[in-house]
């Protein structure tokens, strides 16, 4: 459950990137955030992971009020939220297996658990046979699937994807979107920020359109990206 209540974000001095954002996302939803570059999609996602704080307004994630959360609690919040980015953000000096295991190591998971879970999640994204490959040896689509595997390793209730298909061709993009939908079917709330009309129209779920920092349209079923 995610709630934005009258959220406003201003980058000093006067650059208003979000205003009057009211949005409620129920558990298990698949929401596409659409809009042109600079419409405020990424900022909304960054506010959810507490990389940015809103200038004004209230945000709730899984019952946690992000305005009152302490800095040292932020890592625990982030373990509840998986994130995927356009530029993958993989560690080039680590193998596919190590990239995923890394996310577990830094949250003190026991070794047995790491050895059990990492192969499982790699199998889910279809990279079981590439576990010893380095990111440079993977295709764009494989890199993004690996990033998704890493995002899912903590079994988060929410997965945020910021332009995950931005660097991919059509076929790979479609693979990634299918994977996101599969994850959603397994019960994870997915929020996808994208400006790719084709992708958004293929998904055909809830679409929230942003323009110049405001929500201009919210289609709850079979939404389409209308410019």
């Amino acid at each position, binding site marked *: 459950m995610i709630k934005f209540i009258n959220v406003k974000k201003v980058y000093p001095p006067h650059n208003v990137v979000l205003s009057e954002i009211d949005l409620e996302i129920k558990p298990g939803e698949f929401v596409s955030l659409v809009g042109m570059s600079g419409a405020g999609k990424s900022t909304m996602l960054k506010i959810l*992971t507490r990389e940015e704080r809103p200038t004004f307004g209230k945000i709730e994630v899984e019952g946690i009020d992000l305005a009152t959360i302490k800095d*040292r609690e932020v890592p625990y919040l982030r373990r509840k939220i998986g994130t995927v980015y356009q530029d993958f953000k993989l560690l080039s000096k680590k193998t596919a297996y190590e990239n995923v295991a890394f996310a577990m*190591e830094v949250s003190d998971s026991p070794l047995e658990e790491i050895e059990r879970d990492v192969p499982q999640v790699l199998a889910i994204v279809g990279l079981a046979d590439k576990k010893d490959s380095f990111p440079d040896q993977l295709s764009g689509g494989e890199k993004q699937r690996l990033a998704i595997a890493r995002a899912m390793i903590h079994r988060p209730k929410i997965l945020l994807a910021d332009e995950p298909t931005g660097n991919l061709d059509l076929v790979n993009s479609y693979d990634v979107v299918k994977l996101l939908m599969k994850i959603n079917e397994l019960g994870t709330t997915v929020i996808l920020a994208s400006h790719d009309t084709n992708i958004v129209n293929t998904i055909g779920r809830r679409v929230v359109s942003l323009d110049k920092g405001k929500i201009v349209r919210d289609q709850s079923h079979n939404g389409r990206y209308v410019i």
Partner: protein
Amino acid sequence: MAMNLKHIVGTGWTNFRRNGYLSFGATGIMALALILFLSLLSFQFLTSQVVATLQDKIDISAYFTQDATEDQVLKVKSDLQALPEVASVNYISRDQALADFKARHAQDQLIQDSLAQLDTNPLTASLNIKSKDSSQYAAIAQFLNDSKFKSVIDKVSFYENKDVISRVQSLSTGVKTWGLAVALVLALIAVLVTFNTVRLTIYNQKQEIEIMRLVGASNWHIRGPYLVEGGLYGFFAAAIALVAFYPVIYLVSDKISSFVPQVNLFGFFIGGAFEVLPTVILLGVFLGMASSAIAIRKHLKI
């Protein structure tokens, strides 16, 4: 938590090894800084020893006239001893002075013969005065000058030694203040260079830190390995500095002893080894960890 710590220390050690050149550079710079610290320590020791030796050699003497009685001399002596700045007063009687003189010139037959011809003792009684501090000699000389027994005091040697005394004095204060100033400036430079080197190694892993934050690593998990890494730089730097420093001191110590026999530099560092070794190691580890802590701070903003 034990598992946690093991992982943090293990990661720190891995980073230290994988960073190759940067680790080498940081350790080298810190080793230089620590050698500098050790050199300043020995320099401080040397100058204080030399100044102390010189100060020990300075004294003033009050020579009395021929007709001064022993009572008068002893009265002046006890007056002097009552002064807080006086360390010791040594009374040399006329007989003692003569005996000393004879002993000193025992080989010189001419002097021995001349002395034998005299009926009376030609030498005068004197007081040899040492002060606790070389800056006090002027005050003591002044005291003798104002004394009611001034009439029986022939001369006070201070006015002849004045130049040497003041030169030693200014040397000693100069070494203390300038040595401290130079030490502080050099320490500051060492900290800055170390800090910058560690910052460079952290910058090298900026991406890794960013990803750690994104996947929900706690701040201690991010900071820990870098603190360990910084501490390792410091530890190895201290080891290198000590291994390089002791043999050099051993060689230099010999040369110094031939100039100033009283000063045993190597002995000072061997005798103080139980203080010097932990100090240098702790200083190195502290320097490395503090530099890391400052350098990593910027990357921990949530």
